[in-house]
């Protein structure tokens, strides 16, 4: 049965345990067989040394022959042990892979099933269902945002399907937080045990090969002598997995603690090559880094190494004005939240175009190979870009921001062009989505989810929780954070 491939749904970049257990078992057999052959040679050597017919017939030369052979049984015994240890390690790891793989696969399949159920129960497009299932910490807000996308209609979705979808999202999140964490821990332990055994075996084999290549009565010309007894010295160079193109480290295990908290440790622990690999092969990497929201909490920019990023971040914090002039943390995103929520400017000016410009600069910088971002810088840039994007997507409660943009087509066009330009970069696409995902026809430059026809039944009075007037306030959902 084919194994699943959609590991993103478990917040994994790829298969966490891609090794083939049958192949591992075969390797185990081969290493044990070779160990047995060396042991046979060892037995033959000991037999020759104790054969009175030979040593007695040779006289003094017989004693020399005995002395020359003396170190070999011990060396061969060490080589035998080394090969057996590797064989044992493969066999144990094979068993662990055989046991863990179906459990990983089951988690992945179950989560995909929940995704499908969200699409069918909620009448949601796949993109919206993915957004929901991957960001349970924003569940309520995203439910509100995707309601108008539902084929059930905005109001019907909120009345009849939102709770089902919510349950699926929470179930999927619980799967990731509970069973997945345990499986990742077991897989890591199995991999480590295997690597440790190989390391020990390699150390043993190294002692043999050093003796074999050395000089003196105890080691000289071991290869020739070993060949004389049916062996080849080269065979005693332990064949390690890497030399056969077998990558034991293959498989991406971001962290033993899934979720944003685990991302920074995982990302910064990778080598440059590994980071580059994941960045290029996983289109959602910027969104994963951007989920680390707390990196850009606070009233001042976090420290970064890149000069251009440091300069760019200055624009993300508004100069403090008179006492309490800027509410909250003084961030540009907070000012934008306030403007969209209240319909009033902050500091006597609007901030939507500036926020879009800064967002575009950040995502382009993330994808620029010359931007010299450290791993920490990448997280900061993605985090700030995500923060700005969430604010831009906020609900224009009074319609004042949209009206301002409509009254100034220059600014509306600039806003739309800037956001679309940002979405065309890989990181922008990961964080913001595709331009085609949004409705741009309102001529105000603000991206909005595509409209759906109004539901036939509203104000039917038959559903608990109250009816929704066209254009009225949406019902409040209790905030649930399943990650806590």
């Amino acid at each position, binding site marked *: 049965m084919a194994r699943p491939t959609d590991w993103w749904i478990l917040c994994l970049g790829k298969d966490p345990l891609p090794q083939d257990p049958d192949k591992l078992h075969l390797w185990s057999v081969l290493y044990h067989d070779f160990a047995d052959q060396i042991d046979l040679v060892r037995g033959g050597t000991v037999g020759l040394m104790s054969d009175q017919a030979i040593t007695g017939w040779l006289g003094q030369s017989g004693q020399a022959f005995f002395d020359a052979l003396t170190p070999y049984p011990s060396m061969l015994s060490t080589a035998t042990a080394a090969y057996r240890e590797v064989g044992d390690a493969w066999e144990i790891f094979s068993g662990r892979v055989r046991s863990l793989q179906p459990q990983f696969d089951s988690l992945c399949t179950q989560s995909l099933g929940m995704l499908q159920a969200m699409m069918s129960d909620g009448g949601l497009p796949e993109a919206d269902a993915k957004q929901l299932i991957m960001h349970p910490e924003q569940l309520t807000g995203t439910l509100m945002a995707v309601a108008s996308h539902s084929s059930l209609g905005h109001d019907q979705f909120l009345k009849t399907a939102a709770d089902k979808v919510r349950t699926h999202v929470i179930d999927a999140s619980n799967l990731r937080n509970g069973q997945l964490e345990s499986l990742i821990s077991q897989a890591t332990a199995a991999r480590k045990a295997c690597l440790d055994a190989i390391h020990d075996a390699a150390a043993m084999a190294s002692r043999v090969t050093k003796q074999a290549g050395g000089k003196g009565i105890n080691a000289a010309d071991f290869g020739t002598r070993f060949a004389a007894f049916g062996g080849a010295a080269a065979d005693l160079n332990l064949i390690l997995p890497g030399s056969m193109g077998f990558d034991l480290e293959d498989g991406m295990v971001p962290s033993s603690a899934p979720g944003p908290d685990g991302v920074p440790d995982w990302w910064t622990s990778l080598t440059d090559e590994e980071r580059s690999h994941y960045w290029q092969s996983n289109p959602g990497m910027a969104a994963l880094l951007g989920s680390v929201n707390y990196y850009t909490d606070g009233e001042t920019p976090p420290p970064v190494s890149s*000069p*251009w990023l440091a*300069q*760019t971040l*200055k*624009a993300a914090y*508004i*100069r*403090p*004005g*008179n006492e*309490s*002039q*800027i*509410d909250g943390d003084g961030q540009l995103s907070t000012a934008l939240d*306030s403007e969209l929520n*209240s*319909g*009033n*400017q*902050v*500091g*006597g*000016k*609007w*901030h939507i*175009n*500036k926020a*879009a*410009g*800064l967002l*575009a*600069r950040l995502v*382009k910088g993330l994808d620029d190979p010359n931007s010299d971002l450290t791993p920490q810088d990448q997280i900061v840039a993605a985090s700030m870009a995500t923060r700005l994007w969430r604010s831009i997507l906020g609900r224009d409660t009074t319609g004042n921001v949209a009206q301002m943009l409509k009254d*100034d087509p*220059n*600014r509306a066009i*600039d806003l739309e*062009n*800037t956001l679309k*330009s940002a979405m065309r970069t890989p990181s922008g696409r990961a964080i913001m989505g595709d331009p085609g995902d949004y409705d741009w026809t309102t001529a105000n430059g603000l991206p909005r989810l595509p409209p759906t026809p109004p539901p036939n039944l509203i104000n039917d009075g038959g559903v608990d929780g109250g009816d929704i007037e066209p254009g009225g306030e949406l019902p409040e959902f209790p905030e649930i954070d399943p990650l806590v």
Partner: protein
Amino acid sequence: MITDANVGAFLTERHPDFAPLYQSHLVNHGTEPWTRYLLFQAFAREFLVPRLRAGTPEERAALFDTVEQLLTDGDTLIDDAVDNEIIDELVYVSHVVKHDPIDITGVGPRTAERVARTHNWRPGQPTTEANHLPPTDN
């Protein structure tokens, strides 16, 4: 009309010593239209403010005139970027900082009106004519 297309030339022609900073901006951030906010941020923080603090009266007058020209002849995108970056910075260095604030007496009328609007703004209030009065304290 000053637009994204000619604002770099406008600034460097009026202030040739801004050219190196402008080149640095182009290298760091490129020429796409939305980088205008970063351009005016650099102009305000790294060029305008140090010269307002230490420059001759003639230099200060030329700088104030540049800001006034941007507000007078800039399109609405330039206007918004100047408002967000230069005006905010002028309010900050002249009214907010406690240590060694900069005297911005001599700014043009449009600049003064924007400075007053920003300075007098209070949270939760829509921008009204009352907020456009000149600052009352310094």
